[in-house]
């Protein structure tokens, strides 16, 4: 495959950036999008240029480290992570625009790498259970109704990649936060901190400068793990319930 890449290049956080065009040949349709970027970087290094910086880790779609905006779509045209996106979804001769996640709360570190520690701070303000649990308990010690378990698992799928923020026209982190809140709040282990969790996590989300939700629905379309849009309504319900109760 022969491609034309237009990649966001920015040498540092405070340096100005621009889209730079690179022609690229000899790409196999079986390559992943990241392998295609590796190929580009090999060429750049051989020419003595700086390689394109991008985040990646497991390359199996489970860690949430990778993620770029491809032709305006977070993680590209398929519902998967960038590492699991294959070049067969593009046509020979295509021009592909590659940009970093764009959000005030996710400042660009370099090229396609953004700082997503705002997500860590949201987790740090309630996305856990305080009780020290030790080793995994006996599975039947705390019964969980099947629908609740399914609901928790569906939201536990979130890998925190940030595609929801990148896709949202308001740069909102509501889908991420709702996945974390719903995952824990529905389970008996998460129930004692149900109110403080949602209030504190939403407060941190707001403090980090993420936008509000206007129900545009683009987050759920972009999410590689299929966290559904009604998750946000479920979190709103939790938040309003907690606010009414005036939780500590």
């Amino acid at each position, binding site marked *: 495959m022969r491609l034309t890449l237009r990649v966001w290049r920015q040498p540092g956080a405070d340096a100005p950036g621009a889209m730079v065009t690179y022609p690229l040949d000899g790409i196999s349709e079986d390559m992943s999008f990241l392998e295609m970027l590796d190929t580009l970087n090999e060429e750049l290094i051989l020419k003595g240029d700086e390689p394109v910086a991008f985040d990646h880790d497991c390359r199996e779609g489970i860690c949430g480290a990778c993620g770029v*905006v491809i032709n305006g779509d977070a993680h590209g045209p398929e519902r998967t992570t960038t590492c699991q996106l294959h070049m067969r979804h593009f046509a020979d001769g295509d021009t592909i625009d590659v940009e970093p996640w764009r959000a005030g*709360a996710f400042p660009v570190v370099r090229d396609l790498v953004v700082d997503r520690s705002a997500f860590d701070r949201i987790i740090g303000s309630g996305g856990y259970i305080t009780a020290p649990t030790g080793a995994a308990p006996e599975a039947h010690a705390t019964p969980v109704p099947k629908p609740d378990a399914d609901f928790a698992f569906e939201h536990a799928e979130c890998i925190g990649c940030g595609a929801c923020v990148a896709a949202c*026209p308001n740069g909102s982190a509501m889908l991420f936060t709702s996945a974390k809140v719903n995952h824990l709040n529905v389970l008996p282990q998460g129930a004692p901190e149900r109110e403080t969790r949602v209030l504190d996590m939403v407060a941190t989300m707001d403090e980090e400068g993420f*936008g509000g*939700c206007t129900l545009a629905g683009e987050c759920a379309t972009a999410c590689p793990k299929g966290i559904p849009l009604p998750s946000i309504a479920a979190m709103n319900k939790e938040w309003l319930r907690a606010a009414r109760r005036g939780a500590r």
Partner: protein
Amino acid sequence: MLLMALATRTDRKQRTDRKRADGRPSAVRTLWGSTIGKKAVMAVSGLIMLGYLVAHMFGNLKIFFGAAEFNGYAHWLRTMGEPILHYEWALWIVRLVLVAAVVLHAVCAYQLSRRDLAARPTGYAHRRRRASYATRTMRWGGIILALFIVWHILDLTTGTVHSGGFQPGHPYQNVIDTFSTWYGNTVYLVAMLALGLHVQHGFWSAAQTLGVGSATRERMLKATANALALVLTAGFVAVPVAVMTGVVS
């Protein structure tokens, strides 16, 4: 992930900003200090205005039953609630509630919009639009509706900008006057189309914000939003169309 592990060992961060003297946060402060809270205010104020619009639309449709019925209804709006309430008291209560709803809705929309725009300081070079037209036009639609409300009150309530001699107590004739001018019709039709789009996304959004939305209720809520938008637009547009075509004269 390291943070998650650490977090289990550390004490919960104490938030002093939300606390009252007794250690509990004030519900109003929690509500006003949060994006979700402000959205809830927008949802409730929006639903109040929506309820009013449904009643307003039915009232307007009485124009098809002649001047006596239409003017009589307008007079009843001033006498409703009597004898408990004095003349026009009920009407003024409705007006005050509506003004409060409009102001709260607009202030929250302005504050949230500023926040939303600031949340993406650098835009994408390659832009794709996926959200529906109604979703993307909520802000401009809201501005159009706000300007329309001002014109509408000056035209048919106070008569300040009314064309051709405003007659208090004779709304039937006033309505016909307004819809006999090209600009009166244009302004009204544009505003009613904006209203339909605003209600279509707004009603559904309000349901999500208030936590009513779920996967199973999705179709019902979308259908209700579409039906409300369509019925309201059609019901309001029917009046100028009837005047233009001479059905009402």
